[in-house]
């Protein structure tokens, strides 16, 4: 049996929109195992991004628990959550979300810098990771000097360079063409297969769904199916 990286126990998230209460996540229990290449699928507003935000410690649950590598995120304060995000979680966002004043190298090195890792080691790890994502020679380019696909590769490099427990990718292929989407998925699949990096996607892109080895269907805030492909 694979080691559990993330465990959700009866997780609920209710948003107050004026007078109305919206149940974005409704009593979800789920386990993500080490090495998973899983996708939370469902239509817009189904609650998949909310689940991703709760796993990533970006948001707090109304009830229930989120365990990451055996640590209860719901019992943590903002500073502790920031530490967990910095050290144990990698994020890939829909709109690349690189820091515009930093080069590809600096974006990827930023979190390592926050972790207080020595400059020499940062240099070595970042260059190695940029090579893995196919960006050798582009390290000194700023985001506005790169294509969407290249920017998303930098975002992936930033997410994996810290060797996190899990990479949470929110619609990572939504802003790129299908050819680029395929190449990004090739990259993430390779990283998953060769290095055992755990990926959890939130998506309704068929390219991602086709590649995922585990499909978790979300509807109205609830997990309606959880299919593991051979």
């Amino acid at each position, binding site marked *: 049996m694979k080691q559990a990286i993330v465990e959700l126990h009866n997780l609920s998230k209710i948003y107050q929109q004026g007078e109305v209460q919206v149940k974005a996540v409704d009593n979800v229990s789920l386990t993500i195992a080490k090495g998973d290449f899983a996708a939370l699928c469902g239509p817009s507003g189904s609650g998949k991004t909310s689940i991703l*935000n709760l796993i*990533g410690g*970006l*948001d707090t649950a109304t009830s229930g628990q989120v365990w990451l590598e055996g640590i209860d995120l719901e019992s943590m304060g*903002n*500073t502790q959550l*920031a*530490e967990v*995000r*910095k*050290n144990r979680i990698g*994020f890939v*966002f829909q709109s690349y*979300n690189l*820091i*515009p*004043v*930093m080069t590809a190298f*600096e974006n990827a*090195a*930023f*979190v390592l*810098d*926050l*972790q207080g890792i020595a400059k020499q080691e940062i240099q070595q790890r970042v260059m190695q990771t940029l090579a893995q994502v196919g960006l050798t020679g582009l390290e000194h380019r700023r985001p506005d000097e790169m294509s969407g696909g290249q920017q998303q590769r930098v975002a992936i490099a*930033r997410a994996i360079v810290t060797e996190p427990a899990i990479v949470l990718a929110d619609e990572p292929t939504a802003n790129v063409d299908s050819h680029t989407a395929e190449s990004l998925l090739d990259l993430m699949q390779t990283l998953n297969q060769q290095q055992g990096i755990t990926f959890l996607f939130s998506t309704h892109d068929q390219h991602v769904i086709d590649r995922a080895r585990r499909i978790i269907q979300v509807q109205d805030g609830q997990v309606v199916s959880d299919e593991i492909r051979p």
Partner: protein
Amino acid sequence: MNIITLAARNVYRNGHRSVVTAAAMAFACAMMIVFASLIEGFVKGSEQNIVAMNSGDIQIHRPGYRDDPDIYSLMIDSADLCNRIRQAGFATSERIFAFGLLASGQSSSGVQLRGLDLDFEPTVTLLNRQVMLGDWLDKTDHHGVVIGKKLARLLDVSLGDELVFVGQTADGYMANDTFYVRGIMRTVSSAIDNAGVLMSKSMLRELIALPEGAHELVVMRTDSMMNLELASQKIKALIRSDLEILNWRQLMPIISRFIETAHVQTLIMMLFTYIAVASVVLNAMLMSVFERIHEFGIMKAIGVRPWQIVRLVYAETFIMTIVASVIGALLGSGITWYLQNHGIDMSSLAEGISFSGIALDPVWYASLSSESVLTPVIFLFVIAAIAVIYPAIKVAVIHPVDAVHHH
């Protein structure tokens, strides 16, 4: 990447806004340096006019003489007092006064004759350098007097013209004599300007039959670093306890209080000016922060702590403030340097500017000092730091999920 480099790039990223904000700060800083230097110059000029042109540091009189300047209210042992004061390391000079009527042609005016010790007066005041027309007094010239500018105009006299004095001697007889105008003073005080007739002490002694004593002793510190209060204490210890010893701050309390509060006035003015600057900084930083909410959200998502976000926002503000303060200090110092050497000529606005009876130089000079430069610069940093509290905290406490999904 360290926080300063990141902040510098963020400042550079929106160059136009950063330039406008820094320019507003630099301009305010420069103006406040000029203002503070002008006030400093005014204070120094006023102090110089009071001390060097009028009162000296300390004056000694018989009690009540200042309220009722009676010819008999003399310090008979004034020569002995002067010797003791000089031996203690101070400069001092005797003065005697008399009142009467001065006439020339059809014009006449009440005047105050001021008998000065021509040997020692230059050691306590700079009156001898304030002759506008003609020459200063000379011991060998027994009829030449120097009169105030307005008195000269009132009597319609110019250099060399004859003056007739009528008054009273100390022994009760009529004092009268003729003099001629040897020199005309520029404005140093309203008393000298309107009614001052300056002559040698020996001439006046002879005129009013006052062989010894003095109405006033003027004392100056030879060590300018010596505290004025301490100097007063030392003089008190040297002389009789029945005499009145007052330093210039006690002699002219209104001006003294004005000078003491001038720095407070500068600070208040600075505060009001900088409140306007603070609103510019606040506005610029609010815009800068709110348009980057999403970016800060990403930073928070990848592990940047709220306190590090606050440091980043502060670093951006301080970079602009450093640039602004350097430009402001250079600009302000440059303008002040010019005004220190050339001044602002106010004579076209008013012929004679005086304050509480003390004439002020019609050319207003600035005084450049480290204090007049550093105070506005430090104030600028404090105001910028206060102005940026709100945007920094606002972005530091924003929930990461709200920031990440903010567009």
